Structures are given as structure tokens and as C-alpha cells.
């Protein structure tokens, strides 16, 4: 019973801490962004007044006009003269949209306008999201052998490190490689291709995209007159997919490492998936077994097995 209580208490503590975290973030954002917003608002007001003053347009007609413009802009249609004739829904862009829908990034720079489009997106997402997750998980599982178990066992065999140390080092290296390869380098590329983006904007974009948050304030390839727009969008898609895989990989490696070090048991968090054993390849069996031994040694810390998310099976 005490373990059950403990798990509930931990969960409540977790939730409270989480709420506190959110409040803290809200406070910080508010403090940072509010002044800027004020300034922008004031500027716009000034602009409108200037426009109205110098012309014969009255306020209501201007408002009416602006509403129409903004409505169109919401759907990605720009009224500006030098906006390219390229549609937002040509094949490459539609593919990009489908990809953002299915990977749950969801920029929102182009959204379905028609009712049928909306209904279709509902079903498409309901099917496509689990499908994508399945594929990503499958890829990650195989990649784990390549990237994680192999090097770790090699490390242990050749250098003779302990499993704990080996996994920690390996995770650090993996993190470094992923950050370099999937954040820094693409950010450089994006900041180069997109004129209006700074390096920080590009890193911000990479991060927001790869975490599948996808705010949509920065979307690559939306510049009017973009060269090789289709190719660009498709390569961004590929980047998104591969980057997501790497993020999952890092997350999984972290989870295993935490398991190994007993962190998950300590916090009574869900354990890492044990079903990887099915796909074990013989060469890394030794390392894998040792990892399991270490995990087993860490297991006695865990009194309540039901916190493991994977025990929800039958």
C-alpha cells in the first residue's frame, strides 16, 4: 500500500511542479514580450492614422478592407504585388502540408480552407499520426542497435569500461552529434537560404520544428520568388523526418541510460521498453545482457511495478 501511496504522491508532486513550471514560463514570457507588443501596436495605430489622414478613405472602409486582406493572409494568400503566382497548394506544398499534419508539427501557415478539406484532414490525421509514429518507432528501434548497443558493447569489450560509464559517455557523444548535425548545421543552411532569418531565428525554427511544436511563425520556403521551391520544400520534409527520428533516438537513449542509472526507478517513472530483446542481434547480445543485468540490479529499487507504462498490456 505504501508503494501505491508513494506513486500517487509522486504523481501529484509531479503535476504540481509542472503547473509551477508553466506559471513560471507564463510569467517570463509575459514580461519579455509585452513591451514589444505594446510598441508594435502603437506603431500600427500610427500607421493607420497616417494613412487615413492623407487619403479619402474612411475608417470603416479601411477596416473592412483590412479584414478581407487579413482573412486571405490567414490562409497564406498575399495581396502584395510581388507575391509569386505559385499556389500554396501545388504538389510540393501539399506534400509539405501533409507531412506537417502527419508528423504533428502543424505549422499552420497553410490550413485547409474548404470544409471538405477540414473533414479530410481529420481522418487523414487520425490515421496518419499513429502510422507515422509506428514507422518512426520501428526505424528508431533498428537504429538503436546500430547507434547505441553496438558502440556501447564495442566500448565495453575493447576499452573495458563499465556499462554505466559507457552509456553515459555514449549518450553525451550522441547528444553532441545530434545537436551539431541537426541543429547547428541546418540552422546555418536555413539562415543562408532565407534572407530574413538570422542564425538565431534558424536555430529557433529548427528546434520548434524538431520538437514538433511547429508554431508556424517561421516557415521555410515561403519567400516569394523562391528558387527551386519544390525541391526546397521536399528537402525540408526529409530533414523533418530524419530529425524526428534522431530526436526519438536521443530520447530513447536517454531513457535507457536513466534506467541503467536507476533514475527512472527512483522517480518511479516508466521503465524503458524491454521488448527490444526480440530484435536483438547476436553480436551485441553480450552487451545487451550486461545492460539487463545492470537494470535488474537497479530494479530492486522499484517497489511498484505498475508505474511502468508498459505494464498496461495484458
Amino acid at each position, binding site marked *: 500500500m505504501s508503494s501505491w501511496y508513494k506513486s500517487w504522491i509522486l504523481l501529484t508532486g509531479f503535476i504540481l511542479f509542472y503547473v509551477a513550471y508553466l506559471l513560471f514560463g*507564463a510569467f517570463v514570457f509575459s514580461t519579455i514580450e509585452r513591451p514589444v507588443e505594446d510598441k508594435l501596436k502603437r506603431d500600427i495605430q500610427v500607421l493607420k492614422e497616417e494613412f487615413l489622414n492623407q487619403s479619402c478613405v474612411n475608417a470603416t472602409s479601411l477596416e473592412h478592407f*483590412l479584414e478581407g486582406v487579413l482573412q486571405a493572409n490567414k490562409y497564406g494568400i498575399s495581396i502584395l504585388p510581388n507575391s509569386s503566382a505559385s499556389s500554396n497548394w501545388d504538389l510540393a506544398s501539399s506534400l509539405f502540408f501533409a507531412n506537417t499534419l502527419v508528423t504533428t508539427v502543424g505549422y499552420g501557415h497553410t490550413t485547409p480552407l474548404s470544409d471538405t478539406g477540414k473533414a479530410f484532414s481529420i481522418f487523414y490525421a487520425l490515421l496518419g499520426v499513429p502510422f507515422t509514429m509506428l514507422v518512426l518507432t520501428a526505424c528508431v528501434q533498428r537504429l538503436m542497435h546500430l547507434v547505441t548497443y553496438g558502440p556501447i558493447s564495442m566500448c565495453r569489450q575493447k576499452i573495458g569500461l563499465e556499462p554505466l560509464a559507457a552509456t553515459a559517455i555514449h549518450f553525451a557523444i550522441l547528444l553532441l552529434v545530434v545537436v551539431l548535425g541537426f541543429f547547428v548545421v541546418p540552422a546555418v543552411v536555413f539562415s543562408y537560404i532565407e534572407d530574413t532569418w538570422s542564425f538565431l531565428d534558424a536555430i529557433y525554427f529548427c528546434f520548434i520544428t524538431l520538437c514538433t511544436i*511547429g508554431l508556424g511563425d517561421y516557415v521555410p520556403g515561403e519567400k516569394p520568388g523562391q528558387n527551386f521551391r519544390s525541391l526546397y520544400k521536399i528537402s525540408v520534409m526529409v530533414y523533418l523526418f530524419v530529425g524526428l527520428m534522431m530526436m526519438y533516438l536521443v530520447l530513447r537513449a536517454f531513457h535507457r541510460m536513466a534506467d541503467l542509472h536507476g533514475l527512472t526507478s527512483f522517480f518511479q517513472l516508466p521503465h524503458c521498453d524491454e521488448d527490444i530483446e526480440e530484435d536483438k542481434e547476436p553480436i551485441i547480445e553480450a552487451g545487451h545482457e550486461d545492460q539487463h543485468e545492470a537494470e535488474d540490479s537497479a530494479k530492486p529499487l522499484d517497489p511498484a511495478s505498475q508505474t511502468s507504462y508498459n505494464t498496461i498490456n495484458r
Partner: protein
Amino acid sequence: MRCPTLLALLAGVMLYLVMGALVFRYWESPMESKEHEKLLCTTRDFLGNHSCVTAQNLSDLIKSVVKAVEAGLDVKHSSTNFTSRWDLASAFFFCGTIITTIGFGNLSPRTKWGQLFCVCYALVGIPMFGFLLAGVGDHMGTGLRKAVWKMETLFLKRRVSPTYVRIMSAVLSILIGCLIFLAVPTLVFKEVEDWSFLEALYFVVITLTTVGFGDYVAGANRRDGDLFKPLVWLWIVFGLAYFASILTMIGNWLRVLSKKTRAEMEELRAHATDWTQNIQNMSMDFRIPNPLDLNDPFLLQRRRWKRSTRRRVRRGALGHHGRQGVIGENGHLPNRWVSHTRSMTRLEVRNEGTRLGPGADSRVSARSEGRSLGRTLARSLSMPAARSVMELDYVRDPVAMMMLQGESAFESKSLSESPESDSRSEVSSSDSHTSDMCTPGQGITFASFDASGSLCTGERGSQGGSRQVFFQEDIRFPVPLQQLPKSHNPTKPIPMSPIFSVKPMPLPMPLPMPLPMPLPMPTPPGCKMLDFFGENLAYIDESSDTLSDRNQPVEGAVSPRPRKPRRRSIRRQLPHRSTLKERDSDMQPPSNPPTPPPLSHLRD
């Protein structure tokens, strides 16, 4: 997951994306051009109506307005009093969307510091939310599992099949979740935000799958009612947790299913190998004489006979007295005979098949093959007498008899599938069954077989009669016991002598003739029976241990006499083997030696 599966999955996802792209393009492009047209019209009208505005001015204005809107400003309401969009509630909501990776985007940080902070904030917050989701999902999953379990027990009481119950419970749980987390919020949003039903549903789905376009955001336009946004956020969390737990449950079931099918396949394979192993063992048992049974007269006789036949074989004296050489060294027919009989049986198989009509073709053919084997042998060896024995046995258990008939034949057939040596030995054993009966015919030192020998000779004389008789035996298995010479009917396979000696008269007489069917085949399955019987004896004696093990399960039900059940068990093994092979369902884990399935199989 295997590589081909993975590649197939990847290809599937790619195809899915392309399909979606095409469909979206089809639906959205026309709408887009329409909107564009409308906008151009509006601009033209505006410029026309208000001639003092130049196009340049207008485009400048529009640019700034659009930038402001992208910054999150709401320029539609040009009220001078300023209500920031970054009030605490909205900021809280924004943080929530960041953490859950929904990311609507209707509000986003514009400043450099804001963006930087956003990155760090998300780095910490997303894993934390992941753990929270896992924990909440776990508890919800436990509750869900309990409810589902209760439901399942309810259904299982009504004897619904487990898989069906499982599927139903899955569907039900999904439906309930959909109701609580999809349908109710849709209606709420429809009312509160004044959206259409489709728009509300669209928002709910896009949010719960964490796509989060941001074209529709609940609570975006409300300045009052600050309780609404946190409530929306709570709904998001629980909805996400619920669907994550559902997905995990389904994933686990799929995994268990794949493991089970894999396990079942493994079991099947293990069964198959075990059976072949056991068959081989049994055939080995046939060959290995048990040195402990030296005192058994029958065996002694047999061994002496074997030696004599071997000597005769070596001298090449096989021929008309083939039956002497019929039994090979290990008590089986030599291959020569096997091939001979086989070739003969081929002719008869077809006839048998047509005659016997329905039933598994293989079984029929096998049975006919086996029987014709026996028949041909019997014919050549002028067999017959064992018929009585067969009758005796048959009487006991018609089904068994029938099975046996089919079985011994089936056995030969099935053995043809198994390794060559086995088939040969088994076939030869079945042949030897037939031969055994009659071998104690001429020139055989078996005193015990004298009666049968005489029977044989007697039979030989009356081929026609025997024909009919035997045919009857073929078809009508349950030969009424009372017609048979009494005494020891069933029992005592060992020693054979008493039985045969007891049999007073040649069998053909008492057998009720009346077989309506025209019988092309004269062979006596009875002979085969006897042979089998003989072989049984040998089997029993030589490997009595295993046999007694085998007998245990079957014994009690059938008959009080000790021997009979043993025989029956042997016979029953054959049918069971075949029936088991025929029906792949509910296999029992093989033991070594294979325990015959309970009698219920026969009684089915």
C-alpha cells in the same frame, strides 16, 4: 522488427503522404484561387473608390498590418485601449501549447530573448510533460484496464470467445474515450466559440493529435472568463493521456499477438519434430528386442522363427514360401515385399477409393492402400484367420476399429511422409501384421499358429467365400460378437497360441455374410488385424515400459481386460496421430513418447 517490414512501412508512409498531398491539392487549390480572386477584387474596388490612395501606400500599409498580425496582434478591433495578448492566462496557455508540442502559433515570441527562452523552456518542459503524460496515462490505463477487465469477465461468463471479447473491449474503450474527449468538447467549443460542428471537430482532432495548426484556437478571442483557458488545457492533457494509453494498449496487444503467433508457430514446429522423433523412436523400439523377455514362449518362438527365416533368406529360399521370409530380421516385411505390395495396392487404391466414397480422400486412399496392402498380402499368403481376432477387437469399439482400419493404412500413408526408414519400417510392420497372421502357416514352427495356419489353408481353399467374408469385414466393422467363436475374444494377445488354438473353426462360417456390396477385393483386413495384433504383441513385449505408459490414459475407459486396452491403445495412437495431424487445432504439447489424447477424441 524485420528489415523488409520496416521498408514496407516506410514505403507505406511515403505513399500515404503523396496520396494526402494529391487530395489536399485537389480540394484546396480551387478554393485558394477563389480567395485570391476575391482579394484582388476587393483591392481594386478599394483603390477605385478611394482614389487618393496609391497602390504603393496601400501595399505598405498592408505589409505592416500583416506583420503586426503575424506578431499576434489583433488589428480587427481598432480600439485604442490596449489589451495585451500576453496576459498571464494567455501566456500560460501558450506555455502549455509549447510543452505539449501542439504549438498553435497564434501567439509566438517575437523578441530574440523570447525565442531563446522559448527554446530552453521547451528543452526542459517537453520531456517533463512526457513523463507526466506517461504517469497520468499509466493511472488512467490501470483504471481503464480494470474497467475493461470487468467488462471482459462479464462477457466471458456468457461464453463468448476471448479474442472476440478482447476486440470488443478495445472498441468499447476507444468509443468511450472518443465520447468523453472528442464529442463533448466538440459540442462545448461549438457553443462557446461559435464555430460550426465541423470546425469544432477539426479543432479538437488537430489539437489532440498535437498538430496544432492554430487557425482555430479555443479561447483565443475571449478576454474575459479566464477559467476557460486552463480548462481547455486540462482537457488537452487528459485527452492526450487517454489516447496515448489507448495507443499503448493496442500496441501491446499487437505485440502479444505477434509473440503468440510466433510462439504457436514454434510450437507447431516443435510438435512436428517431436512427432517425427517419436515415430522414429517407436520404430526403433520395434527393432530393439527386450532382453528381459527371454522367458516368453511366444517371443522365443518368434526369434527362432526369425533366425530360421533369416537363414532361409540367405539361402535365397524366398518364393512361394515367401511368407516365411516375409518377416524380416526385425519382424517386418522386407522391402521387397513392401514394394511388391505397394505396386499392387496402387491398383486397388483407386477401387477402394471409389468404393468407399466420402471421407477424406487421403484417408480413404491411405486406408485403402493399407488395407489393400494387407489384402494383397493376405491373398498371396492366403491369410485370413486373424479376421476373427480382428472381429473380436473390432467388436469392442467400432469406432476404434474403423479408425484402426483407416489408421493402419493412414499410418502407412503418413509414414510415407516421414523419413524413408520409418515409412518402410511402418509399412512393413503393417505388412507384417498381415503376414504375421498367416505366416504361421506352412512350415513354421509356431505351434500356436497352427490353428491359424489351418485357417489359412482353409481359407485359401475357399477364396470366393473368404472374399465375401473379408469384404464384410472391411465394410462392416462392428461384427457382432456373438457370431464369433467365444472364449478369449478380445484379450490376450500373448500368447497367441491360446487364442488361436481356442478358435475352433475356421472363421468364415460364422460371419454373417450378407454384404450387399459387391466386393472386388478379397483381402482380409482381418489378416492384417492379426498381423497387427502380432506386431502388437512384439511391440508390447519388447518395449513394454513405453507401452504401459502409453496405455495409461486410454485404459480405464475401454475394457476391463488388461490386454485389450493395450492393444487398443496402440491402435488408438494411430488414429490419434492422424486425427491430430488432420486437425491442427488444440494440440497438446508432445511428450515423449506421445501420450494418446483422451478417449474423447474418438468419441467426438
